């Protein structure tokens, strides 16, 4: 088990996890060697097959013991989760891929151009590259909901004003996928972190949305904000969701 550089911690905070609580990586060490393994909680690297007994004692002890090693991780290649295992993540990957293709096209055009035209194309390339790296739902193209797709919405308010009296959603309302919610949010405090909510009040009221197929949606990743790392799947109901498609709220623990 090894500690990792702080800039890698910051980088991992923006990368989707492989499974809840860890990233699968190929790590480069300060010795120059490379190891396959995982980084737990964006903090400690454990190589494949290693089962450190220190983890059983407690997190703080585990981190302190890892810090004692002279070896450390200086760079990582994150291994993405298999797309078929999480529907919401697959959609984001597709959205990001579009921007990546646009960036590549602009770069090819820029390499064949001169002067101000080249400058313009390079600027566009950088813009698309940025979008490919971090596509918030707000900036994403509109897509359609799938058959039987389910979404969740977390709120500190039981009387959420985005939920209509007839249990629909107003246009422009944010939610997340059921998959993202179930894998990552067990408490209202978890929701504050994962969806970068501005209020520290726990979002412990959970609404379930089951829209009809082909409902207009935008999908993306929650960007870091309000001192929260974000990283959750975010979905915007562009035109809302019809009456009778929302249930709840169910109550989850605050912390």
């Amino acid at each position, binding site marked *: 088990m090894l500690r990792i550089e702080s800039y890698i911690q910051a980088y991992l905070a923006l990368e989707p996890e492989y499974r809840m609580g860890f990233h699968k990586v190929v790590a480069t060490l300060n010795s120059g060697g490379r190891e396959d393994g995982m980084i737990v909680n964006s903090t400690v690297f454990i190589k494949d097959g290693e089962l450190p007994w220190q983890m059983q004692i407690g997190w703080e002890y585990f981190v302190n013991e890892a810090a004692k090693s002279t070896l450390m991780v200086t760079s990582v290649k994150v291994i993405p989760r298999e797309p078929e295992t999480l529907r919401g993540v697959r959609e984001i990957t597709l959205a990001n891929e579009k921007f990546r293709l646009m960036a590549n096209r602009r770069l090819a055009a820029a390499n064949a151009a001169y002067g101000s035209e080249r400058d313009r194309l390079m600027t566009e390339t950088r813009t698309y590259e940025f979008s490919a790296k971090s596509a918030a739902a707000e900036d994403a193209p509109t897509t359609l909901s799938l058959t039987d797709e389910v979404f969740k*919405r977390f709120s*500190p308010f039981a009387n959420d004003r*985005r939920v209509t009296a007839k249990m629909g959603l*107003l246009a422009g*309302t*944010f939610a997340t996928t059921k998959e993202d919610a179930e894998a990552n949010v067990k408490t209202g405090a978890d929701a504050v972190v994962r*969806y*970068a909510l501005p*209020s520290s009040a726990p979002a412990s009221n959970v609404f379930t949305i089951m829209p009809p197929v082909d409902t207009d949606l935008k999908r993306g990743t929650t960007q870091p904000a309000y001192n929260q790392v974000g990283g959750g799947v975010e979905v*915007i109901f562009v035109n809302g969701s019809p009456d009778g498609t929302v249930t709840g709220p169910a109550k989850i623990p605050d912390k």
Partner: protein
Amino acid sequence: MTTVHLPQRWIEQLIRLPESGMGYQRVDIHLKKGKILKGMVVLNAEEVQAPEPFEPSEIVDVQLVR
């Protein structure tokens, strides 16, 4: 940070506008005498998280910002 409750008129305006994130909107609040509170967070279309208290009746406009 202080919480200011919006009058019903502004709540009704905000619920017709899209959210900025799950459960909140970012707005500029225009007050009488030309003062503008920029980039305020409004929770649930009703609670403004403001750096200092202000009188809700002083509001002359609320505009959504990105």
